[in-house]
């Protein structure tokens, strides 16, 4: 059942990705000042929204795990965070390619960039911690606690970063991309966002299934060892 839904999602995301590529490179009008570079926008911003949705899903799943101790929520949490980490990586890698021609620099410690990088580090810390613990029940509890702290810390980091940088204004941030978008640009952006969310769903379902199978194998192995 779950297998089928992930297959449908995967097929849908494949079709939608092709459409997104068409829209991005052939259909949407050229941006006047930035030129062709601006088209990265449609592949750069949506993954960040997906990463945000991922940590939200991870947070909710972790809280529910701590309450119910149902390991399916632990599966969901790790799947969301791992896939979210990939999307955050895409966002982080694409950004500099846009920033170099437009801002003249690869990176600046601006509020959004810093937050995205901190989020990436938090995801990475979570995934490394997961690999460092063998006991499945201890691992699930520890990781849930970590996600809760990271989500709260992440929100405060974002807020604090805004105040932090308002004291040291960054000239490069003048006139954000959001100011006065052509409606067609909005359509492509929203379609790309939908595509990324469907892709996220497909990967999430597959990853959850993998985690469930892993857990089952781990349990069977333990049973065998205890009987031997």
């Amino acid at each position, binding site marked *: 059942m779950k297998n089928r839904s992930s297959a449908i999602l995967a097929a849908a995301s494949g079709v939608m990705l092709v459409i997104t590529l068409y829209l991005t490179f052939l259909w949407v009008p050229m941006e006047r000042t930035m030129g062709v570079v601006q088209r990265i926008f449609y592949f750069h911003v949506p993954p960040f929204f997906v990463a945000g949705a991922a940590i939200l899903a991870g947070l909710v799943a972790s809280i529910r795990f701590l309450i119910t101790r149902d390991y399916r929520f632990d599966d969901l949490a790790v799947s969301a965070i791992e896939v979210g980490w990939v999307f955050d990586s895409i966002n982080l890698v694409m950004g500099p390619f846009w920033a170099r021609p437009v801002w003249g620099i690869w990176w600046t410690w601006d509020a959004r960039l810093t937050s995205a990088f901190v989020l990436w580090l938090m995801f990475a810390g979570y995934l490394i*911690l997961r690999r460092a613990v063998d006991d499945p029940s201890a691992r699930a509890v520890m990781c849930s606690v970590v996600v809760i*702290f990271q989500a709260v810390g992440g929100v405060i980091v974002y807020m604090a970063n805004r105040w932090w940088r308002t004291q040291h204004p960054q000239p490069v941030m003048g006139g954000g991309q959001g100011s006065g978008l052509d409606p067609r640009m909005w359509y492509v952006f929203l379609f790309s966002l939908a595509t990324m969310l469907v892709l996220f769903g497909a990967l999430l379902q597959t990853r959850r299934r993998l985690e469930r199978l892993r857990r089952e194998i781990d349990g069977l192995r333990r049973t065998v060892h205890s009987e031997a």
Partner: protein
Amino acid sequence: MDVLRGTFIIAFKDLRVELRSKEVINAALSFALVILLLFSFAFDPSAEETREISGGLLWLVFIFAGILVLNRSFARETVNDCLDGLVASPLSGAPILLGKAVSNTVLLLVLELVTLPIFGIFYNVRWTVGLGWLLLVLLLGTWGLTVVGTLFSALTVNVSLREAMLPLLVFPITLPILMAAVQLTTTLFSGEPIAPDMVWLRVLIGCDIIFTVLAGALVESVLVG
């Protein structure tokens, strides 16, 4: 009331252990001095910009030395299964966490108060200008770091790669505390009025409250499972 008493019992126990063994404080202090030395190679200590980055430098010293203290906080309880004894004792999780956080904060504050004058001498920073405010910032910043750090010290105590895991997890989460503390400390060192930076003091207090409540709520899951 019980929580308060338990907190003091644990805090005094830990401080007494530290006073007798001086296991952590000597190592952390020496480490802080080593970092101070390394800074002198990273930039020209006499430069005027030193004052502008002095708050950040000082807090880097504090958090790196602080991680040593935090790493030992629960690691020392693994010998002779002391941690199991603590968990099995009539105390609940909150006093254990708060007691250890208090003792870690005291240790770190001692370290900070020793490092501060040395930093002032080495890098020609006037740290006595707003000493009252500075002490408040040190206290609030250190408490926020240690309360998260202590919980994560309990969390990572049985993890392989513990020494690397703790900073990897704690630093990104406590970033807002660091940002606020760095900003306030730099302002105080430069001798400017602190009034425009009041928002950072509120960030610091807010973070302390949020993280203390969160750590208190989750410590039972961490210790008992």
